[in-house]
């Protein structure tokens, strides 16, 4: 049995080298179960690369990733998804020609292991249909259910991106700039939906909008040039001189 101290998701000296360049350099990060953890840093700091390493899109050049107490470093992406790690992409990665409902159904059916079933029509999966509509309702997308994803306005597409991640019922949710492209008023709502997820879901999100970060994060990690600069509670980060130096002239904090 796990002790309460075991992190939900943990990395140990994780590194990703592209030739000479170390995009991620010896990052040791620990996410407690139920965390609302933000990852911030200047452009090119390696935040997206870190998420790619956590989800298995990239194989690290050094270091380990642990889920619970178990090393998942050798696992490919789709296996990690099955273990409960889901992500959203910074740039919408959607099924352009499928409707919103079809897209979400696809994710739900995969989660339940029905993805390979070939004898029953998708429209006959009533329970999953209900679940899909419920999920869309929480994201205010119910009205778009039968619209082709390509025809949606950008903000709604962003929400579909989040819906797809949520449809896998993740225990760990990694969000790459979830509010990018969503008008300010709605982005608070969206992050609110995310923060309101069950307490045992662990959330790590990358954001540039400091308002959102300080509103929803309980812990913040600052990544600069592939290394962790500092990590701590929001007010600690706001006061940290190193962080201020990095952000000087860019945005004001809190």
């Amino acid at each position, binding site marked *: 049995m796990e002790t309460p101290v075991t992190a939900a998701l943990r990395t140990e000296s994780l590194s990703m080298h592209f030739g000479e360049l170390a995009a991620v350099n010896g990052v040791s990060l620990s996410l407690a179960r139920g965390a609302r953890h933000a990852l911030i840093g200047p452009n090119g700091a390696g935040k997206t690369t870190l998420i790619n390493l956590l*989800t298995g*899109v990239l194989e690290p050049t050094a270091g380990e990733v642990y889920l619970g107490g178990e090393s998942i470093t050798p696992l490919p*992406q*789709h*296996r990690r*998804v*099955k273990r409960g790690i*889901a*992500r959203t*992409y910074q740039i919408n*990665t*959607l*099924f*352009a*020609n*499928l409707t919103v409902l*079809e*897209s979400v*159904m*696809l*994710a739900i*059916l*995969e*989660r339940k292991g*029905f*993805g*390979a*079933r*070939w*004898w*029953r*029509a*998708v*429209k006959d*999966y009533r329970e999953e249909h209900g679940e899909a509509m419920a999920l869309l309702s929480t994201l205010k997308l119910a009205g778009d259910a039968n619209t082709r994803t390509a025809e949606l306005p950008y903000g709604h597409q962003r929400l579909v991106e989040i819906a*797809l*991640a949520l*449809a*896998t019922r993740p225990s760990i949710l990694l969000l790459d700039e979830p509010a990018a492209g969503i008008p300010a008023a709605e982005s608070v709502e969206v992050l609110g939906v995310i923060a309101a997820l069950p307490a045992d879901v662990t959330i790590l999100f990358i954001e540039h909008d400091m308002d959102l970060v300080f509103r929803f994060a309980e812990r913040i990690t600052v990544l600069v040039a592939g290394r962790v600069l500092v990590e701590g509670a929001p007010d600690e980060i706001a006061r940290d001189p190193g962080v201020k130096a990095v952000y000087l002239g860019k945005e004001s904090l809190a």
Partner: protein
Amino acid sequence: MKPGLPAVQIAFWLLPIAAFFLLPGYLVLGSQILIVSLFAMSLDLLLGYAGIVSLGHAAFFGLGAYTAGLLAAHGWGEPLTGLLGAAAIAAIFGFVVSFLVVRGEDLARLMVTLGVGLLLFEAANRAAFITGGVDGLSGVTMWKVLGVFPFDLAGKTGFLYSYAVLLLIFLVLRRVVDSPFGLSLVGIRENRKRMDAIGAPVNRRLVAVFTLGATVAGVAGALLAQTTQFVGLDTLGFERSADLLIMVVVGGTGRLYGAIVGTLVFMVAQDYLSGINPVYWQFWLGLLLILIVFFARGGVLGALEALWKRR
């Protein structure tokens, strides 16, 4: 959607029956159209649903044809088991090749499918002592279908036999494309990255659909061998793979009916125009392709759908 209406679909499937009675002189061409429709549907599975562009799909068609042909030429002329044998061989071969196809990036994948087709063609060409080489495989004598219906010269048995197999397999394939598996194929086509991100074992699905496509193609090839009682090298040729690609696109990819419509249009046009002047046929076909790419990407059914939406 227009073809979705059950009445329209039933009418569609009654057309061949009508043709059987009204156009007795065209039954041989008719069987060919039915058989190639089946072949085209198998390619649509790969192309229209999973998004795999294959320039060598005829490899499986030819394999099925030669398997069924050789079985019959060497004494076992029972049609249905011949179909099963062809299906099995095509399935095994498709399964093996699928691993090659699944691995590469787009371009390498295209070349591999092309290479496999050409490879098999060369092999069949060289192994003339088995396949009859350039002269083709003759001596394919078939027994009666279900022990009752002999293959006649007018092509009546061949026509109904092909029709029955086509309809049966169509019904199965339609189930497949409407199922979660079918939806996952479209998902893979639309955005492979996203499929990985929702936990789908993409390679496994591609192997499955490729094997399925190969199997159906093999059955179609076997039908051709059995109804014409001859197997030529052209069943494996690049021309056949390319023509098939064109048929599926002309009809409209990603909807099984498109494959059938496209085959019908193509083969009727070819029968008519190629007879007049093969050079003209090739020229206009090339031009048609270019026009389709620029103006009518959804093919015949796509254009009909667009018109339907606009009314």
